[in-house]
């Protein structure tokens, strides 16, 4: 269920997240928490983009880590092999993602449901294989190191700095997403989700709209990938792996399909839960799996939509 707010309150959820971002560090006992926070924001950015595709347009992608990989390797390969500054490499990665998403999306977005899921899965695997095999450029399975980001002479490094940079970018990404939903294209996408055929007879160019949102969501994933690589200072093909794609889908579904804030919450849960479960040692992954299953059984519509419904009834 998508929550509709009057236009002037459209960005209220973003304000709530912004307040949270500012207040949370007051309770951080150590710099380690900034690191976790930055990781949440970066993955949430990719999840917000994927949610535009899945939650609003209703098109699944099991290969979005492919775009994360493109963005990540752009900031690794760009400065090392091409002499591009890191910031320009982020842009170059995004542009490359637009091109790849445009080329790949055109044929595969004709598919629906399970077929689309498998096709996107294949795309993600393809990117991961290319990153592993092109070792002259990518360093192969061992990956490569990533130089630091410098913006106008300011060296972006350390968990605290990345916490704020990632948060600011996530907030911008959320604002853009909310803007898009409340627009002709946003309405058309939601219409496609509910009835493809009715959208078509009302003049919606369904194939083009699906492609457009696929490209937009690829840019979100690409920027998130670039940030992840710059933040870690190192990148391996795992960043584009199947598990990463599944993780992004899980964040979207867990937080709530069609809820932008939900993608942030979903990312937070899936990043923070494993950290808290480390105390369980060998049973860490069992606990995580059980927690995700419990969420899906008891709050199937997603965390944020469930909370909204509970508050309004």
């Amino acid at each position, binding site marked *: 269920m998508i929550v509709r707010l009057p*236009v002037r309150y459209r960005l209220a959820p973003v304000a709530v997240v912004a307040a949270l971002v500012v207040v949370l560090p007051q309770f951080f006992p150590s710099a380690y928490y900034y690191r976790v926070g930055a990781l949440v924001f970066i993955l949430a950015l990719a999840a917000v983009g994927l949610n535009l595709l899945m939650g609003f347009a209703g098109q699944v992608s099991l290969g979005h880590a492919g775009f994360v990989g493109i963005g990540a390797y752009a900031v690794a390969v760009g400065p090392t092999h091409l002499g591009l500054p890191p910031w320009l490499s982020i842009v170059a990665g995004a542009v490359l993602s637009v091109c790849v998403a445009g080329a790949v999306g055109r044929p595969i977005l004709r598919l629906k449901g399970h077929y689309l899921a498998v096709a996107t899965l294949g795309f993600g695997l393809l990117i991961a294989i290319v990153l592993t095999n092109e070792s002259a450029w990518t360093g192969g399975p061992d990956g490569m190191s990533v130089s630091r980001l410098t913006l106008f002479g300011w060296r972006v490094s350390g968990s605290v700095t990345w916490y704020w940079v990632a948060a600011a970018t996530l907030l911008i990404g959320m604002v853009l997403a909310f803007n898009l939903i409340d*627009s002709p294209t946003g309405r058309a996408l939601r219409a496609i989700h509910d009835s493809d055929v009715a959208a078509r007879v009302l003049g919606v160019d369904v194939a083009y709209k699906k492609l457009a949102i696929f490209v937009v969501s690829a840019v979100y994933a690409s920027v998130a990938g670039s940030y992840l690589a710059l933040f870690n200072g190192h990148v391996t093909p795992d960043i584009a792996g199947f598990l990463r794609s599944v993780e992004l889908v899980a964040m979207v579904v867990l937080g709530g399909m069609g809820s932008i804030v939900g993608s942030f919450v979903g990312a937070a849960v899936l990043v923070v839960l494993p950290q808290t479960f480390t105390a369980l040692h060998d049973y860490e992954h069992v606990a995580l799996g059980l927690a995700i299953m419990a969420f899906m059984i008891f709050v199937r519509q997603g965390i944020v939509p469930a909370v909204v419904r509970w508050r309004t009834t």
Partner: protein
Amino acid sequence: MANNVILEVERLSIAFGGVHAVNEVSLAVPAGMVFSIIGPNGAGKTTLFNVISGIYVPQLGCVRLAGEEVTGLSPDRLARRGLSRTFQNLQLFSRMTALENVMVGRHRHESTGILSELLHLPSVSRQNRLTRDAALSALARVGLANDAEQPAGSLAYGALKRLEIARALASEPKLLLLDEPAAGCNPVETRGLEEVIRSIVAEGVTVVLVEHDMRLVMNVSDRIHVLASGRSLAEGTAAEIQSNLAVMEAYLGVDHSRERARAVG
């Protein structure tokens, strides 16, 4: 063909796995009237609508809209040429509000690009306002102004039928195909529907109606085309169709229609 023919179907055929759903059907709909297509279940009425609106591509024959050949064009391109329709089995956007459903109907009149939408430039706010106002007035025309903010999924069946009409109207079609709008409606709702259809035609929109409610068909139609087993059976005014023996046979079977003819005669 004369200029005032808005829709022309010529020797149209489509078969599914050997079953001729529509078989060499030809018809011409003059602009500005209510043209009804009737026939027993399985006569091919909805299939014909699906071909005209671009959902199916015919195997033979052609469709002309306002004199231009449009056979095989996609539904969205036909919509942009002024064709709109409703569905026999409702095709609403159930997770959107009634108002938002109708706002999607305005899509072909909206012109903002995705970049300006991401940035929510003033042109997008202006577009949203225009779309919203037009959608609200379309809702008001079918008597749903008070349900604008209701999720479409929560409306009663009769209201959903009218919501689909409002959504189609919002696109400002030249030609509107209504597929069984009265199905599942009570007599009061059906009379309301009759008023709505009359008001649509009064604005110069041509309506092609597929309907089983014969009282509604006979009341509003300027011309009626009868299909049976995918073929054209007859065409004429309400009075002509009512006294047509072949039509009665198709509907009632041979014996009953003879009896009825004897009783009438």
